[in-house]
């Protein structure tokens, strides 16, 4: 199986390199995340702990990183693959002279998928594309609780994972300078919300409303990227 996958990857690279006006793009941006389920879980943990912890991080927007590689399929459209990495988290915290208590929820996600873009204006210098990104999104949640009283401390950590589908419609504005290409894009991620399970165990958490704990990455994605046009005739 591994041999087949490597062979497939090598053949794709040869095909990609032999084509003209193909684009490789690295990008960074910012994403906002719904995370309703995580926020609910955080509130319930605080209530049940009996400790007056404050919510100091509430799953804020945070940086995303990714790249894409596309093959020009026509004068105005491109088909390619892409990957993004995003993260966010929540924290409950309390500290006084006698000790400290905290509860962290750190979420990281990798998105792998294909995209397709088609130019929707006629400008050569500032082409504007409508984009569609589909992907699998693999999420890892690490929950860590820690209690420190004087010289004694106690902590516990737990990881959960999920794998879901994602669909992101958007737009992208490009500018080509010689073999370089610059791009600004915006999109809105819409996801399926599968339950998060403990590693290698069929166990999950439920919030007080009876729903399983999930990672809800739904939200706005803004990014800036730069890349190369491979196979272009200058």
């Amino acid at each position, binding site marked *: 199986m591994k041999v087949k996958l490597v062979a497939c990857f090598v053949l794709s690279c040869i095909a990609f390199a032999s084509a003209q006006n193909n684009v490789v793009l690295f990008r960074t941006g910012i994403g906002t995340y719904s995370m309703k389920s995580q926020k609910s879980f955080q509130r319930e943990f605080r209530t049940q702990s009996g400790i007056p912890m404050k919510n100091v991080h509430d799953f*804020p927007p945070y940086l995303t990183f990714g790249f894409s590689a596309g093959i020009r399929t026509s004068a105005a459209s491109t088909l390619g693959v892409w990957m993004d990495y995003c993260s966010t988290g929540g924290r409950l915290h309390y*500290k006084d002279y006698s000790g400290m208590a905290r509860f962290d929820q750190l979420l990281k996600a990798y998105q792998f998928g294909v995209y397709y873009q088609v130019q929707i204006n006629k400008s050569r210098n500032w082409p504007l594309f409508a984009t569609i990104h589909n992907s699998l999104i693999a999420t890892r949640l690490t929950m860590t609780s820690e209690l420190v009283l004087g010289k004694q401390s106690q902590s516990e950590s737990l990881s959960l994972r999920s794998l879901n589908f994602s669909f992101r419609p958007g737009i992208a504005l490009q500018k080509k300078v010689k073999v370089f290409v610059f791009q600004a894009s915006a999109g809105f991620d819409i996801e399926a919300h599968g339950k998060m399970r403990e590693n290698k165990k069929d166990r999950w958490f439920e919030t007080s409303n009876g729903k399983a704990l999930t990672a809800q990455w739904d939200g706005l994605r803004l990014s800036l990227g730069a890349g190369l046009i491979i196979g272009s005739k200058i």
Partner: protein
Amino acid sequence: MTGCTFSPHNEYVSPIEPPKDIYFTIEINDENFTDPYNLVYPTRFDFTLQETSKPITNQIVLVNRTPVSSSLNGKTISFTLSPGSYPDGRSEVVIQVQFDTNSGSLADRMGTEYYLLEKKITLITDRTPPPDIPTPTLAYEKGFLTMRWTPTTKQNFVYMIKRNSYWKDSIITNPGQSYFADPIFMGGKIKYTLMASGLGFDKALGTVEFDQAPIDWKVEISDKRIAHLSWKDVLIDTANTKIRITSYKDKLLPLTRSAVFEMDTLKLGDQLYYNIEIFREKYPNIKYQDYRLVRLLPNLKPFGDVVMLPKHQKILLVTSNKIYRYSIPDFVLEDSLIAQGINYYNFRRTSLAVKPDESAAYAIFNSGGITRFDPLNFSDQRNYNLFSSTIEMTGSNQEIDHIALGNVTNEGLITLSLTKVTTWSLVYDLNLEKVIWNSAYYTGFPTVLAPVISGDGKIVAFDNPNSLTAQVLKNAGGSFEISGEIDKGQKFFLNDKNELINIPHLGSYPSIKENKIVSIYNLDLSPQKTRTLEIQPNRGEQYLMGISYDVITRSLYTRYDDITGYANIDLITLDNFNSYKKLKAKSYGYTGVHFYCNGYLMINSGFIEQVK
């Protein structure tokens, strides 16, 4: 990639300040507790912290660094230590108390922040009993029976005071104590055993006995037969102490150092138990009890028959071997006459008859005849030989078995019944010394009631044992002829001639259903019943036990005995058959036969009182 990942970094720091230090110690104020403490029995310790503004959150008790079970209830820490769990010697007890700081900090909320208070005490366990001591002593001290002994130097035991009664043992936990003042003993007889009880031993240190009444009390009877109960010289403490006196009355009084109480007025022939109970209010079931039996002293000799001489204010008493003469109303014994063999029965006029003018008395000293004597001068005597006088009538030379007298007239006619195997009723002329009338003989009736004769000697009435009725005879030309029939019973002439009263017999077991009828007859012609009085056999729970007639006061006498042992007596006038006097006396079964005569109530056990 790690640098590109979100990392939580914000913190919330509470401004809570640490609680201030506090300083306090535990002092054990219980005077029964000493440190080191001799653990003798499984002992429950209750330590109550009296001045704590901080709530107690936890407590730990360690004995020789080993936790023992303890509990917390409010401010009281409790645990039980059993001496058998520890070896002889000293053991260290550490009591740790945790108080809430109420700071609100995280550690406070987690229960790990508290003020810690610690108290150490030492336990001693010792299984060696104390040595012997001299015998304890017992005496009343300040109103309490107090045992004293010589304490030992050992501290590993408690004293147990065992009594020879069902009372619970008293325990003295201080081995250095040298006395025990018994708070519950009220007096009397008791035995104490002083025990030393400790871990693995119960040793008797001494036994002492005591027997002394706590109070000197008595019951005295005054001339008016009023009982006075008094006491003095009370040895016990009288505070919160009661005395209950029980007789006819029930009195509950505070016990004083001395007292005199008028209790009861005793009845004629009375005897009465007086019971006292002395107890402390705190221990009402632990009592000193004592009793006295009080009897009235008789003022006459016990007697079987009695005749009153109202004109001379004398009483003649007949006993089994003497006749006594007393003066009335002072009851002074004046003279006595030996009368060996005299017969008397529980019927009136069976052994002694006196002329109405009191000039002569007649008694049966032996079965041979009648003895006449002067009731005022016992030395003046004369005998009448009835044996020879009645040979012709009886047709027998046998000795006379028995003679019962009736009455005698001033003219010398005396009635009697005479038994020589068979029995006759007869009238004997003391002047002529011969029988002037006799009945037919009866068989099987050795105690036939003697006839009665009227004062003028003309009418005789007698109960015929062979008939259901009594018969009346009249003297007609020197011989007595039957005039008619009347009821059976005791008969008395109400005058010298023609009026007679009949008192029915009650028998040994009087009927409780039938009324008894007292009848008065006019005997001028054939007997006519002129008046009757029906007497009920019972009045509630009082039962008729006696009916009689007193010739001197012309009074009917009825006696009803009640269930309390007393006789309720009515004196009834013949004028209208109404009761004119009610009396109370001890009943027959307690003191003897009752008599009423000439205004005096008598009991044949020797009691007499004038009815006023």
